[in-house]
């Protein structure tokens, strides 16, 4: 696939060439037309000069031509030609240039069938074979009595006369004047070649300038391409840097960097999750393996073997909890969980969840204060909301210090209804609030003890998102920790 630079260059140079070509053609046409019009004007002027020599006098048409004054119509090397025709089709006069050779003598100018009161031009082949241009003017000779006297004084003039029929209307005479146009054509060809050459030079110069402009203009893009090309899964922590990027590239750089940041965070999260899963399973596997190996090696120690079996059962339960939580999270992640909304009385859900925890709570001598309004109702999925509540309460029981109090309270405003779970948390720090919903996060990195696997709050967040609930964690004075679950109220 061609590069953007090549593509831009092809488009630009193609466009420039087309514009130059059209401009060249138009300019050549204009200049050629101007030259031809000038040529025609000169030809017509010459014809008008000859017309001025034609007069009507005493019933005759008289044409007074002096070859000395108009040597171009003589028998020189590159002569011009004229013919003066009478209305009856007879020729009154022709230029001496026709007498140069037998060929020219036998030839005649092309009169054409159409009379022309105005000057009519056409390209012709001259009697001597050269390309030429001819003008035809049909005119009525002027009547000038004074010319008679002048005629008598100038005996050198060549004078042609023809009688004009009496009583008829003034006769219309046809004048044909022709001259070669080969120099004009050569000039126009030179002009065309000049424009063509100039155009080629311009195209080449433009190509060079465009290459330079594209190289400079696309430098940022090329740097960006180079940096992006160098990125791989091992370099997600690097960021694309392009010095003084143009606006379009700046936006791309920002977006690429934002994407990289998200990818990096995602990769880190995935890596951490994989590592956490591995670690969460490695320890119980190590325990199981050692229990079985030691038990098998000294099977006669029945007390130890019995204890090992009990331990194996506990380990299996712990691993089951991990797998169940992970599967639940996976179902939510994949959007496979359906939500069946019904009215759910929050106080009833909380009471039921606490009932399941009373044994654990009693072991830690925890007091439970339920301060939820009996009227508080969420429009939500009862089963999943129960899971949210039971996880939050289980968390509170697990991490509350012995002899402390767990408080469940509710609050309702016009915009939202919420239920909060508050307990003492001795070790939590403000920075923990940002990560405590991450999967496998536990304040105690050692993950000592197998009952809590660090997936409860992740599941709470995932289910809350699914149910359209908001979950907020807060650290309160006196090392109290509160999680609030809110549902925006419709209308």
């Amino acid at each position, binding site marked *: 696939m061609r590069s953007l630079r090549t593509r831009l260059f092809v488009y630009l140079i193609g466009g420039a060439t087309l514009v130059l070509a059209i401009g060249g053609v138009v300019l050549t046409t204009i200049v050629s037309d101007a030259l031809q019009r000038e040529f025609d004007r000169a030809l017509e002027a010459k014809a008008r000069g000859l017309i001025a020599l034609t007069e009507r006098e005493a019933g005759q048409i008289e044409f007074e031509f002096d070859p000395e004054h108009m040597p171009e119509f003589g028998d020189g090397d590159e002569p011009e030609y004229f013919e003066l025709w009478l209305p009856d089709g007879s020729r009154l006069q022709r230029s001496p240039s026709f007498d140069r050779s037998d060929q020219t003598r036998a030839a005649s100018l092309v009169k054409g069938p159409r009379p022309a009161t105005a000057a009519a031009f056409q390209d012709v082949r001259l009697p001597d074979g050269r390309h030429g241009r001819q003008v035809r003017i049909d005119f009525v000779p002027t009547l000038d009595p004074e010319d008679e006297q002048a005629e008598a004084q100038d005996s050198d003039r060549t004078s042609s006369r023809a009688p004009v029929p009496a009583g008829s209307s003034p006769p219309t005479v046809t004048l044909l004047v022709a001259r070669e146009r080969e120099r004009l054509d050569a000039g126009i060809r030179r002009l065309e070649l000049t424009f063509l050459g100039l155009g080629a030079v311009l195209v080449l110069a433009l190509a060079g300038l465009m290459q330079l402009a594209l190289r400079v203009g696309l430098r940022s893009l090329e740097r960006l391409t180079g940096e992006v090309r160098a990125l791989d899964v091992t370099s997600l922590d690097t960021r694309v840097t392009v010095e003084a990027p143009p606006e379009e590239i700046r936006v791309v750089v920002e977006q690429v960097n934002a994407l990289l940041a998200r990818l990096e965070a995602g990769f880190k999260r995935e890596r951490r999750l994989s590592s956490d899963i591995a670690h969460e399973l490695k320890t119980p*596997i*190590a325990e199981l393996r050692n229990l079985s*190996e030691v038990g098998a090696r000294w099977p006669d120690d029945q007390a130890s073997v019995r204890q090992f079996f009990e331990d194996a059962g506990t380990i299996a339960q712990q691993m089951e909890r991990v797998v169940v939580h992970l599967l639940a999270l996976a179902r939510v992640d994949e959007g496979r969980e359906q939500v069946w909304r019904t009215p759910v009385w929050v106080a009833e859900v909380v009471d039921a969840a606490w009932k399941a925890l009373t044994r654990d709570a009693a072991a830690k001598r925890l007091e439970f204060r339920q301060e939820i309004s009996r009227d508080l109702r969420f429009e939500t999925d009862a089963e999943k909301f129960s899971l949210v509540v039971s996880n939050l309460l289980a968390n509170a029981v697990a991490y509350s210090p012995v002899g402390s109090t767990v408080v469940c309270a509710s609050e309702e405003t016009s915009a939202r209804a919420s239920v909060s779970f508050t307990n003492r948390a001795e070790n939590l720090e403000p920075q923990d609030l940002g990560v405590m919903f991450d999967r496998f996060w536990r304040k105690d990195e050692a993950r000592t003890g197998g009952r809590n696997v660090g997936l409860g709050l992740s599941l709470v967040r995932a289910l809350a998102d699914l149910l359209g609930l908001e979950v907020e964690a807060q650290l309160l004075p006196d090392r109290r920790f509160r999680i609030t679950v809110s549902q925006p109220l419709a209308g």
Partner: protein
Amino acid sequence: MKILLVEDSQRLLRSLGQGLKKIGYAVDLAADGEEGLALAETYDYHVIVLDLMLPGLPGLEVLRRLRARGGGAHVLILSARDRVEDRVKGLQLGADDYLVKPFAFEELCARIQALVRRRHQAKNPVIRLGALEIDAARRRVSRDGEALHLTPSEYALLELLAYQRGRVFSKEQLVEHLHRSDSDVSSNVIEVLVSGLRKKIHAHGEPPILRTRRGFGYLVE
């Protein structure tokens, strides 16, 4: 030989402690880093088996503090962390070996034995005392190719004295090396142990291997 096992998993601590004890090691157990460090600084352990992710004081910090205070016990890190950087960091901080969970009990024992040999600067796992041969790798003792059946405690006593050939151990020292720190064992137990061991390893007409220095203790020559 005395081993300190620092591991936060009670189940692992229990099963490993049980297994190592049955082999003949005197095993002290610690469930967190602070307790482990306190024990390591108090007693002379041949090997410390140390988990990394411990509540309270992390394993690497225990190791760092132990080495900073000149603790010379060989340390075997036992961790679920299997990344190269974790192993490198542990070894760079002064660990002598690194074993990733899950692991085979046999492998742990072999590595502990290797560290014990290193402690005694012995490369060959087989110790020969005349006609007596002690295979520390298989924890077996034989005389002229015939296996002798020693109890784990007898084996541990013989192995300790054989590795430290020529050194006299008092009864109190032997109690400290061969029994858990929290055990209430009197020096009479050592006398009984030595007596039983002598009967099993000494042959008629040959000079005794295990000797008594009256007023000082016991040694192997």
